[in-house]
């Protein structure tokens, strides 16, 4: 009987092992939400240039975080502005404590800590030196201050976001990112308003 109980306990442990991670919070691995050195959120084109420089400048893709899409199992490089990240060691941080903690540490760390990473699906990108379709206006992607996720599930334009739980959106907006749902761009998060 004792041997049966031990064997049963071993089986339970083996079955539970893959799910152990899911029961842990990211804080258990040393992560902390820092809210450190966030730049001011600009409003409109002039302020965007004032805070982040000209579109497609060298700072616009200075940071990089690799993001794994949960559906197609591909790792997408997301380049973004120097002023929006690089702090610490998480998610592509430079190891520096003098850089912003916003995207790589705070946003991504929160997503993991709240077990929301499974909702991030393919078509993930940040910096792209490109204008808005059919327009002479630069996209916020050209400054490296925009990130699109779940793009395949949310083709533009759409006002009814799919596979984009409110909790995931709240993590972004709590860190000064504006969600593009109001202008039919459910996949889109940008660090600027009125643009």
């Amino acid at each position: 009987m004792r041997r049966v109980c031990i064997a049963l306990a071993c089986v339970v442990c083996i079955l539970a092992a893959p799910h152990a991670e899911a029961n842990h919070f990211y804080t258990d691995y040393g992560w902390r939400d820092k809210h450190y050195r966030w730049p001011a959120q600009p409003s409109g084109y002039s302020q965007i240039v004032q805070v982040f420089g000209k579109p497609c400048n060298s700072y616009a893709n200075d940071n990089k975080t690799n993001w794994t899409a949960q559906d197609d199992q591909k790792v997408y490089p997301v380049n973004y502005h120097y002023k929006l990240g690089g702090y610490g060691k998480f998610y592509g941080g430079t190891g520096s404590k003098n850089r912003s903690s916003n995207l790589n540490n705070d946003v991504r760390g929160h997503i993991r800590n709240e077990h929301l990473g499974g909702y991030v699906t393919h078509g993930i990108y940040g910096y792209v030196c490109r204008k808005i379709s059919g327009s002479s206006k630069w996209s916020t992607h050209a400054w490296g201050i925009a990130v699109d996720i779940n793009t395949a599930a949310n083709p533009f334009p759409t006002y009814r976001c799919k596979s984009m739980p409110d909790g995931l959106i709240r993590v972004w907006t709590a860190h000064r990112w504006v969600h593009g749902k109001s202008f039919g761009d459910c996949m889109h998060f940008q660090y600027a308003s009125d643009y």
Partner: protein
Amino acid sequence: MRRLKRSAIGASLVGVAIAGAFALLPTRTVHTTVTPAAGTGEHLLLVIADVVTPANARARLAEVNGRFGDLQGFYADGSDAYEITGALVRTSPDEKRVQCSDHPEYECPHRATSVSVQRDVEHRFVGRGSFREHRFTRDCGRSGRPPCERERFVQLFGADLRMPRGSTVIATAFRTPKGAAQFVAFARTVGVRGLVTVQVSKSGGGEVGLGQESHPDGSGPLTRELPDQAKRQRS
């Protein structure tokens, strides 16, 4: 009746007089000079999605651009404005497969043992005269190998890389190899594949999206021709 007739004649005369007065006024000169499209006279790098008949251009453009969301994708322009001078052939694989156990930083999905890491796009210039004899990578398209391109180049332009006349190219233009490579990588992310990149000399035509790449000095967008631009594209 007579009164009516006199009124009509009078009104006509007044009308003629007014028209005549306007004819004597100095007219505004309307300048009809057409500004040449950006890139005319330059060597450019064209990332091409397709070459189609003018009748099919609009539909094909809409189909390809549908994947870019609110970002500008490709443009449609007459092929007669372009002369191919070389090709930028891919030398890097699209992705590299890595084991999850070796790379915990990638946070593999549940039960996945490996993931594919998207790689930077790298090109090598092949002149038009050398293209027919150029040896493409063996086992192209396999894991760890560059994507297969030769067939696509030949399908669109023939083995001698000649731009079809009277057609429409679905393309977007760049001045630097880095600009072209970054766009190809982005297009790959949103699911647009089968792109080829050629070097062309542009003799006219319309808008093909120049200016949407970084200046090599990092100051902002590249809006003008660079010194030795054609040479830089070949290096």
